[in-house]
């Protein structure tokens, strides 16, 4: 059973200085992403055969804590596998994500935003990726996509899933709550279906609009 009333919006090329930029809105969560690259890399970070990807996540208030560092590491490991880094050795690709407004779902929103910004910057990718965040309500056996903080607290389990665009397999997952194997498979399949039905078509539409406009 599906239940969806989320509002997804995105905008490409909203900043003039970064090579690629994107703004992604899910309900009330807004994230902004800027990409620079491929460009000059510091000697310390230089890798001989591939590009060096670095991710910076700036929280809405306050300084960087562990939560931000973990997210930066997760995103970098995802991007390292997706960007064709061997095409640009001894360069740096910098991805910066700024949290503008946060009403839960920040992980999924940032990942989608990063994907769009990379496409806007014309960085070669093996495939694009889409991220879906959903929560499973126990008694009613239904799934809420992009839940807000209150819905997430009341749910049995919630998770953020990242799928690739070619085989629609799982690239990354991050769950919270206690569940068993069947519930996990149920939510995984539904999340995959949502990505295929809603998110990948949204990306296609945005890219078409961007290039038809030019």
């Amino acid at each position, binding site marked *: 059973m599906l239940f969806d009333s989320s509002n997804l919006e995105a905008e490409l090329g909203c*900043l*003039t*200085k*970064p090579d690629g*930029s994107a703004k992604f809105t899910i309900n*009330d969560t*807004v994230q*902004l992403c*800027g990409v*620079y690259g491929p*460009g*000059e*890399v510091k000697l310390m970070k230089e890798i001989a055969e591939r590009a060096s990807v670095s991710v*910076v996540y*700036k929280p*809405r*208030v*306050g300084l960087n804590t562990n939560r931000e560092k973990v997210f930066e590491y997760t995103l970098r490991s995802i991007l390292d596998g997706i960007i064709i880094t061997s095409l640009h050795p001894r360069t*740096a690709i*910098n991805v*910066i994500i*700024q949290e*503008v*407004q946060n009403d839960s779902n920040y992980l999924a929103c940032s990942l989608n935003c990063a994907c769009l910004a990379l496409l806007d910057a014309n960085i070669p990718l093996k495939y694009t990726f889409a991220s879906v965040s959903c929560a499973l309500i126990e008694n009613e056996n239904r799934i809420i996509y992009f839940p807000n903080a209150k819905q997430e607290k009341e749910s049995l389990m919630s998770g953020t899933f990242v799928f690739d665009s070619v085989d629609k397999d799982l690239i990354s997952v991050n769950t919270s709550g206690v569940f068993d194997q069947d519930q996990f498979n149920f939510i995984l399949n539904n999340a995959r279906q949502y990505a295929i039905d809603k998110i990948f078509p949204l990306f296609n539409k945005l890219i078409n609009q961007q290039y038809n406009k030019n």
Partner: protein
Amino acid sequence: MREVPLSLAEYDFVIKALQDNLRLDRRSVYDIRDIKINFLKTRGACIVSIGNTQISAQVSADIVKPKDSRPNEGILKINLELSPMGAQHFEVGKQSDQGVELNRLLEKNLKQSRFLDIETLCIRAGEKVWQIRIDLNVLNYEGNILDCANIAVICAVSHFRLPEVSVTGDQIKIFTPEERNPIPLITIHMPITLSFAFFDQGKYLVVDPTELEEKCMDGKLVIGMNRHREICTMQLSGNMLLLKDQIKRCVDITANKVAKLTEFIQEELNKTTSDLDQNQSVRTSSLADKMSLT
């Protein structure tokens, strides 16, 4: 990454254009670029842009122990970060000289001029006060961060609502927004800065320099003023000497602009309070639509 260096051809072109009173974006020498203020749904959050320079401001509040030297005053912390998103040569980590200078100017203009009444932030003298923290991030750098950041702080602070607290004996209870309406912060005046860039040993001046003009300039004059023609900050930096008349002229220009800017900001803030009643989440508005500056 490294900054793209300035070429001699670009420098010559900018100076020659100024000799004929022309600027590259077709503005007059005294024009400020279009200012847009974008308030977000969260209270105390806004994105301000002057031309293409965009800065986001986020306000948050915490209860802390006050400083020993000022037991019945709250604390105001302003932190401007040159986010690596703004330009490719901005780095994370230790602040560059430019970052330190900007933070110091904002502190002088806003904290030392007492634009926010910090005595009203006291909850329990000597023990608990509110600490208001403003985080500024440069999203896009196309010149003149200071003016943009200044307006962002003023808008964000006026937009922010502080949760109500009640003190009973030893306990302090913080009310959630559902229980009691949060209260606005009390600002005494609005000190707005204006940046002037000087070229060729002070011969030519422009208001609100773009990034290219900032690279070519000899020196910079920053004047912070409020609408009552009180000067809150003045800083002259760079490699030049100015005459008394030049500085007086700049002060007059500032007074003129500040009056119009204060009106514009006030109008926008009034609109957001009415927006709340209509439950509109984001509002963007542009200065150029309202008035023409000469």
